[in-house]
């Protein structure tokens, strides 16, 4: 497949539709490379026509189908075909392009492209593109301090217009992203908790936010504070069988090592034996239920449950990197040698049918 590098036009140099802004991206898919030659994936048509512009409808279809490679190529092709004076359209297309690169884990390439884009000195970037730009130092170079600084700058900009509901909503999202960035830094947990506590001041009546805060405390080992917050959630939610409460109680049980209790609670959320087909909301609970089986000494039960889940919902559960990782960890425990390789190869084939581009093949623990 030809790359887009080398398409240069002196008339567009310095403009947002200049071909020299683009980085070369590898066109090979890591998942494809792992498959043996006899296996095929459903045809994932990658654009080969770089002389045309693509419609937003088609670009959106690529997003829905997780066809990030196609999106990257199609968006760059469309950028090249868009007149330089159509800044708003070009910036939107750059958002598509950057999104695609990030989902392909080409963070360094995305960072370099946006850096060049910044040199063009065009203002009015879409909010999504500014957020992506802010996070790239962390994603590409593990410079999360810079990412936090940039996210904070965006937050302050939203704060200056906090009378606008959209800005308040953006601020909330940015604060969560900042907390996430803090958690990635060694020694950043305390700052994350401090920001979290500040966030809680304005959202103490939302049981989901309080639950989320409690779960972060649990993740860090602050059980006392986590239990305090979980208690507040119990008081906020009337229906005591709400799945939010059940999941919270289950996580508490996991933290306390009470695996039987955790299993029962996750089972009641997953409702695997119920009449309703398992939906996307319950996949996490079903995964967690399976993990309880491992900790109770039944690794084969964990494998069976995860496999059943992934086969029943091949698109939603079968392509979940977390479930695949858990499943492959179980395979590592149960099998050895050729049997292990065969089991993983089988899982690889199953995932490849449904997974989009950019699937993290490290999940297979090969």
């Amino acid at each position, binding site marked *: 497949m030809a790359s887009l590098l080398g398409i240069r036009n002196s008339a567009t140099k310095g403009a947002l539709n200049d071909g020299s802004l683009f980085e070369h991206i590898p066109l090979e898919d890591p998942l494809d490379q792992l498959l043996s030659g006899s296996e095929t994936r459903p045809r994932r048509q990658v654009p080969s026509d770089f002389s045309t512009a693509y419609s937003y409808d088609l670009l959106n279809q690529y997003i829905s189908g997780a066809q990030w490679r196609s999106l990257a190529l199609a968006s760059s092709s469309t950028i090249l075909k868009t007149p330089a004076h159509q800044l708003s359209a070009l910036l939107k297309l750059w958002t598509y392009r950057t999104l695609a690169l990030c989902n392909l884990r080409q963070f360094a390439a995305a960072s370099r492209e946006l850096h060049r884009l910044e040199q063009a000195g065009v203002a009015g970037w879409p909010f999504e593109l500014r957020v992506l730009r802010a996070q790239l130092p962390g994603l590409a170079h593990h410079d999360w301090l810079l990412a936090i600084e940039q996210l904070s700058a965006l937050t302050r900009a939203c704060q200056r217009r906090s009378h606008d509901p959209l800005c308040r909503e953006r601020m909330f999202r940015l604060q969560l992203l900042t907390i996430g960035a803090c958690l990635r830094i060694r020694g950043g947990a305390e700052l994350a908790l*401090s920001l979290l506590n500040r966030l809680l001041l304005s959202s103490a009546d939302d049981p989901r936010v309080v639950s989320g805060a409690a779960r972060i405390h649990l993740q860090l080992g602050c059980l*006392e504070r986590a239990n305090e917050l979980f208690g507040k959630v119990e008081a906020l939610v009337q229906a005591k069988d709400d799945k939010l409460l059940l999941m919270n109680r289950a996580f508490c049980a996991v933290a306390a090592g009470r695996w039987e209790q955790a299993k029962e609670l996750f089972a009641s959320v997953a409702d695997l034996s119920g009449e309703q087909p398992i939906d996307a909301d319950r*996949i996490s609970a079903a995964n967690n239920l399976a993990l309880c089986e491992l900790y109770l000494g039944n690794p084969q039960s964990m494998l069976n449950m995860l496999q059943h889940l992934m086969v029943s919902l091949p698109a939603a559960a079968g392509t979940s990197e977390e479930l695949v990782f858990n499943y492959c960890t179980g395979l590592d425990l149960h099998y050895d040698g050729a049997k292990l390789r065969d089991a993983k190869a089988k899982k690889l084939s199953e995932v490849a049918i449904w997974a989009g581009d950019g699937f993290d093949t490290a999940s297979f623990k090969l």
Partner: protein
Amino acid sequence: MSLMREAHPLTLKVMRLSRPVLAETQPLLPLDSSESVLAQPLREAEQSRPTARGQIFSDLQLPDTRHPLDTFPLTETLVLPRSFGTMFLGETFLAQMCICNESSMVVRDVSVKVVVLTGPQQQQQQPLLDTSGSAQQLAAGQPLNLQITHEIKELGMHILGCTISYLSAQGEHKTLQRSFRFQAANPLVVKTKVNHLKRDVLLEVQVHNATPSPLVLERMRFDPASPFSVQDLNEVDGNKALLWGDSGGLMQPGDVRQYLYRLQPPAVTKDTTVEQERAVQYATALGKLDILWRGAFGSVGRLQTSQLLRKSPGMFLIEVEQAALLDRDTVSIEQPFVAQARIRNVSERKMAVSATVHTHKHPLMMPCGPVRHDLGELDVGQVRELELEFLPLAAGVQRFGAMAFCDNISGYTRELDYLLDVFVE
């Protein structure tokens, strides 16, 4: 002669079961609600990856726009540990063992023995599991699952030795041996410093998080040795949490925390015997620290220090047990006041005690009255009260009462640097 590894129909795998954690999200693009052309297709893409989302699900019908959680950093999906990680002293090693019959024949009389070898040259052996009393048979492809736990009580190299004995399909007794090595590191570095405050002991404790991850010190308790009782000075109005602020006691890697405890021996009363007081003054053992901490998702570790020791202050043969102002709480400049001290003979023989005030040691606190005071004969354990009058010449905190006690029978002398500190108004 070449050595060939014996082929076995059984395989053995061991996996450490440290706590799972919630998977992190990678929310690349916040779903900007009103101005984005990407919002709708992104929502559809997110729907197809429910376990990677930062949503927190509930049956409640809450409007999402007020507190949109799509960028929440954690999912609701637990993931297993990505690696063995580091083992720390005080933690419990929990592992899942899976023995699988990979052959197409039945294997009989399968018994498992697991030991942990520690210490120098790994000579100390601790049995963890022995199923020889209940040997099993494994059909083709059948696994045998076992869990082992071991509290890590020593630093350094640990070897998990697994021995599986079985009867092969050909009727031969065979043994499969495997060993797994791991190191146990020190999670906390604890340093102490002992300070004496008259009869009390102020114990400073410094705790350093030597792990690469944050942890929470859930319990820092000092268990005093007899005859001491302990006062925990690490609370603010009875609330430990206030001391550490919003962090909830979280210690980052490399963080150091300082704690202070006051150890108090039983108060001296008129019924206190010399032997009892001697037991206090010559006591070297202070007590032990009991520390409990939590790591990721509540993983727990516990350490207890060995007995913390002090250099005992010992006893003077003539003890000044109590010293206080007589009949007043405050002292004013150029107004005489009286201080009283209880003097006890804690030797093993009768004494004839006299006290001589050093007038030159504290020039701003002038002694009034006689410089030498004769306390007379004191039997073993007997107490005499001594009253001394002083005139303060300057305001502020003043130290006074330097004196010498002398046993006129044996010639024993004890020098006292000062009797009291007092604030002069």
